[in-house]
């Protein structure tokens, strides 16, 4: 009997200590994120603006000759996207709630990189997921806006839906809705002043009617002329890739650089690589061979193609590293974001 009492006391004590530790050592969800994100941009002058989480606080840094922290948000806020102006003096970022279901108050901030002065450019009771800017279209900042945020099933995570492209006039401080598509998904917003168009990745679902057809549809890149947004057209690619995700346009070189699945690793997880498509020669070329989750291509003014690799893709926490590729030689190198 004595032995049983002792065992009981030992179990009670151990459990009590575990509960106590749980109550004191638990890390709130908002404070768990740490490290580099895949959100970055490169200015003409080669400055790299990027977002890093520090104990859950979304922090914006700009790396030029040195590394400067230019903004930091409270742990309950996230940064959805960032754009640095070509001169590297100003940047914009989307401040949103980490509670992804909370659609109230998504604000776009404007930051003076030199002084760190941070002001709210505009805010909306909607979901702003991406920003885009092209110096050729002066004083216009383009953004993707989703109107609802929902999960399509109880075990799936909530995602933004009903997307459209909007723009904001920095001088007149006015908004304009460009498309009226209410798309299920839209991503990788690009602007080309030269083509007077925006480019967007979305589902090629115009002919899909049945559930099977919707399930089978592929994601493609569309050009939407700003003068006639209703006349959008899908960018034709002769070597039909499977789903095509992130992309960047290099109009001067008639080049489209896109992210697509290149294989599957031993754990059954997709490996994403970057490919280029030259729409004049209609040639497709594989650019990266990392056998990892290569993502977010950004074409820098220095002629390099910047991108990130998530070494823990499909894991619980991301592990991003920034890389750049010399398109001529094909050489890749990791970009250090330390001072």
């Amino acid at each position, binding site marked *: *009997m004595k*032995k*049983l009492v002792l*065992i*009981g006391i030992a*179990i009670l004590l*151990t*459990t009590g200590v*575990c*509960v106590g*530790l*749980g*109550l004191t*050592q*638990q*890390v709130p969800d908002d404070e*768990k994120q740490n490290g580099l994100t895949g959100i970055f941009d490169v200015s003409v002058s080669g400055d790299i603006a990027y977002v890093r989480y520090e104990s859950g606080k979304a922090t914006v840094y700009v790396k030029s000759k040195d590394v400067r922290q230019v903004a930091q948000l409270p742990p309950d806020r996230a940064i959805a996207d960032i754009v640095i102006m070509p001169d590297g003096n100003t940047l914009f970022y989307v401040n949103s709630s980490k509670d992804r279901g909370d659609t109230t108050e998504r604000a776009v901030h404007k930051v003076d990189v030199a002084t760190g002065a941070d002001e709210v450019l505009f805010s909306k009771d909607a979901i702003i997921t991406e920003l885009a800017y092209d110096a050729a279209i002066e004083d216009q900042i383009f953004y993707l806006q989703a109107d609802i945020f929902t999960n*399509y*099933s*109880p*075990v*799936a995570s909530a995602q933004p839906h009903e997307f459209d492209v909007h723009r904001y006039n920095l001088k007149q401080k006015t908004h304009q809705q460009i498309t009226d598509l209410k798309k299920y998904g839209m991503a990788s917003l690009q602007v080309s002043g030269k083509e007077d168009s925006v480019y967007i990745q979305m589902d090629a679902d115009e002919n899909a009617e049945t559930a099977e057809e919707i399930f089978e549809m592929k994601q493609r890149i569309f050009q939407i002329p700003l003068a006639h947004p209703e006349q959008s057209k899908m960018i034709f690619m002769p070597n039909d890739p499977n789903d095509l995700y992130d992309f960047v346009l290099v109009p001067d070189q008639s080049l489209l650089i896109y992210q697509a699945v290149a294989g599957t690793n031993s754990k059954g997880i997709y490996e994403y690589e970057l490919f280029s498509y030259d729409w004049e020669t209609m040639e497709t070329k594989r650019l990266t061979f990392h056998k990892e989750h290569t993502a977010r291509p950004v074409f820098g003014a220095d002629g390099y193609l910047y991108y990130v690799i998530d070494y823990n893709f499909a*894991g*619980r926490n991301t592990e991003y590293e920034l890389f750049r590729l010399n398109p001529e030689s094909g050489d890749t190198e990791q970009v250090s974001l330390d001072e």
Partner: protein
Amino acid sequence: MNPIFERFVKKVIQETDCSREEREDLFEELVVHLECACEDFKRDGHTEVEAARLAMINFGDGKNVGKTLQHAMYPYRREMLMTLSIGSLLLTYSIYLSQLFVMGDTHIGWLLLGVLFSSSLLFLTLRPVVSLNRRAVMNTLLVIHMFVMGAGMLLSLDLDPPYTTVFSILDALIVLFTIVLIFRTTIYDVPATELNLKTGTKFVHYFNLLFGILLLLGTLFFLYAYLIFASDGYWGLWKLFVPLALWGIFYSLQLILLKHNRKKIAYIVTAVQLLLPLALFGFWILVVRGGLS
């Protein structure tokens, strides 16, 4: 009947996993044995009190005798249950602390459930409660324990390497071990009645338990698939559990039929069980697809 012998024998029996009937038989047998020994000592010239004392001394330490009897009747059952309960307790603490210190998450509810069922198994093994229907209680505990440790598997898979690999393997072993003990408790550690000794009864238990596990996995799979793809309406969800409920009814029916020596009909019901996966699939079509169209 000597009340001292009764108290002594009760202590012996307390150490065993016998059913109520087996306990009554064993009780009677041991008391008669002690009384015979006592009579022998009395014939040798010892007083009543002295003869009783010598009979018990010759019989041996009650606790040890009980343990020996337990081992003879149910070999290694106690050791297996001790290994399972202690292993489960240690694994529960390890997974909980890994989740806390590696991932920053606390799962107090799961910890308390894991500790409650692991320690219940441990205490019931160390200190059998005579008044309980031990086999039914033990099997209920084992089934719930299997689910709790199944939830532990989800927590293990959520960890970072190498913790996820180590704890997932250990958790899988614990769940498998629990299933083995459910089979053992149901099929082998049963009273040696005429019904239980029949090969047919064992076959029916084997078949039904295996089938029940497969059906449960199938139901959980369809439920998960339903929750992934369903956009609205959960009212039809209960239909997915109909095959499991039918399984329980059919299982009981087979045992009742075997008890009444209706072997053929019992086996026909066993064969009918084979249609349950089809029923599950049919309910899936009804619930999720809203029919064949």
